């Protein structure tokens, strides 16, 4: 049986608090590491964009970020870790961008959600090859990259809370009926599906992804509006 609205509403928060505490317990050392991690990621991304993902060696990354190759593994054990960190950074970037973008305040919910995914894709564009290489692994439930893995939970949930905030606002001004946490989860999965389409999109300028994104969001808001409240 599906949970009622009250439960779904607190679930993201409950999970978030737990994972957040876990993260805090890991201590200050983790936070200190952050700066170094960002430096490594920056160097790696520059190399990926210039030479391509496969041609870039760890040696080159260590050279560019000025961190010994051995030390590098302390920060990122695998390529997946690097990718995970990359995605987390990009999602944070999207959230910051959205908060700073005043024009979107007056846009309707379909445009807001469109803008969020489109901006994410815009950020990811230079690293398409890299993303494509690690993406399929992310779909495996055992991967650290999986949206269900513990490692990605904290930021993942933070992102869902951010989406839910936007949905709540739309619910508040009567744009859509209450959708609870379900809306945010559904959006998360939808974003994943769009990303998959985007990676495989061969059309020029990836315009087919734009059209798909637009149509899906319009249809979803249309049905939400016409369908009235969700009846679990």
């Amino acid at each position, binding site marked *: 049986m599906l949970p009622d609205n009250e439960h779904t509403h607190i679930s993201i928060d409950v999970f978030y608090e737990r994972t957040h505490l876990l993260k805090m317990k890991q201590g200050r050392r983790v936070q200190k590491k952050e700066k170094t991690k960002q430096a490594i990621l920056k160097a790696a991304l520059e190399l990926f964009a210039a030479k391509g993902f496969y041609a870039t060696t760890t040696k080159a990354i260590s050279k560019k970020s000025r961190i010994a190759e051995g030390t590098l593994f302390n920060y990122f054990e695998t390529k997946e870790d690097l990718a995970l960190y990359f995605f987390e950074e990009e999602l944070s970037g999207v959230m910051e961008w959205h908060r700073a973008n005043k*024009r*979107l305040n007056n*846009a*309707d919910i*379909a*445009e807001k959600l*469109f*803008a969020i995914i*489109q901006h994410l894709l*815009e950020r990811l564009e230079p690293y398409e090859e890299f993303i494509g290489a690690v993406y399929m692994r992310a779909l495996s439930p055992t991967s650290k990259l999986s949206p269900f893995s513990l490692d990605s939970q904290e930021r993942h949930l933070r992102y869902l809370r951010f989406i839910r905030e936007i949905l709540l606002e739309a619910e508040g001004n009567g744009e859509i009926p209450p959708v609870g946490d379900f809306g945010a989860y559904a959006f998360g999965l939808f974003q994943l599906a769009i990303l998959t389409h985007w990676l495989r999109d061969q*059309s*020029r*300028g*990836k*315009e*087919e992804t*734009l*059209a798909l994104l*637009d149509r899906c969001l*319009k249809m979803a808001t249309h049905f939400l509006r016409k369908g009235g409240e969700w009846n679990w």
Partner: protein
Amino acid sequence: MELVKTTKSGALQRGFRIGKLGFGLVGSYLGYQAQNLLLSESGKAQRRERFQKRAGQRVSEELGALKGAVMKVGQLLSMQTRVFPEEALRELAALQMHAPGMHATMARAQFKASMGKFPEDVFREFDPEPFAAASLGQVHRAITKKGEKVAVKIQYPAIRAAIENDFKVVRSATFAGQLTGYLPTAGIDEVQRGIMEETDYVNEAKNLKYFREQFEHIEWVTVPRVYEEFSSDRTLTMSFVEGRTLGAFLETKPSQRLRDLLGARLFELFDIQTCELKTLHADPHPGNYLFRPDGRIGMIDFGCVKRFDADWREMQRFYENRGWRKSEADARRFLKIICGPNAPYEKARKILPDVEEWLELFHPRGSGDIFFGRKRDPAEEKRMWAAWHRCGRRIFQNKWMNPEYAFLSRADMGLCYLLEQLGAVVNVSEIARRVEADYKTSKAIAS
């Protein structure tokens, strides 16, 4: 959707289901149009009323959301004046200029997808809100870095693929029509080719250049200039043309003199295109012209340009002098133009009384000159369209139709309707004589 439910006939219902499958939200509307054609007169009036009340505002919203071929079909339908109720016509006319389209974020992203750069990197200013809808995209105001005012037409993403899909549906839904030859596959191919051509803005830029050259000597007409550096096959940047669309222009309550002047000029443009250039800039529907209080006319939307061989001047003469009455040879020639070369004369001749009746009302002869835009009384009008439909039905049933004639006569009636809406009375024979003489002189000088 309820319209679909009210249908009782099984075959019709199946038809609508197929329609719904392919056209989604628009199913109920197109379904209604099909249904309307098949219903008896009494049922028609009843349903029309119901339709007007219920669907009124919703139509353009839903049609507009679908874009592509369906929207194009909507525009074609809107030109078939009188066949559809006034209410629906008004809705569709609105569709021509104000379709709901891409939001600002989408337009910006699509500009990037087609030009490789964001609009803010290319222009000094770019208005994220569109000011007009084009059938396959929308138009934004912008100012170039040099300070020139431009209109940027941006195509809805992946429209080509969408249209191809729509046509697959159209083809499968009209399979029976294709088999029996009433809806020749070649005809569908032609429509598809035309629409695909319209999605290619490089082609539209070429058309714009052509008409700019051809109309250079007419100071009262404006054809926009193309900015090639800011254009691609899916983005078209043109100089901004000032003026109001027909509806907005009429709201300013222009004087009868101004209306007559604009009407005469519209006909002159039309006559030059049909008789001298043999190239017609789209169907003359109100959305393709902009009107200005000083009597200038702006031409926009050059996506759908048709070239043809037919001699429309000859047709005009036939209409003016009722030329087919003169001799059998003339009658044969006239029927060949209307029905195409395959129609047997003895059979085709039967349409002549209907043609006479229709023409007597559509192109009435007073001083011998033909006037467009004269007010007719409703009973006369009803008779006129009845004759026109009888004529069309006979041609259609015998699979005769000469496509160039069909296209040109539809354009002719479209212009006539446009002049009626404008409220202009125009002596078209006089203008045609002047244009013909002008072009003869300039050709003689050139040679």
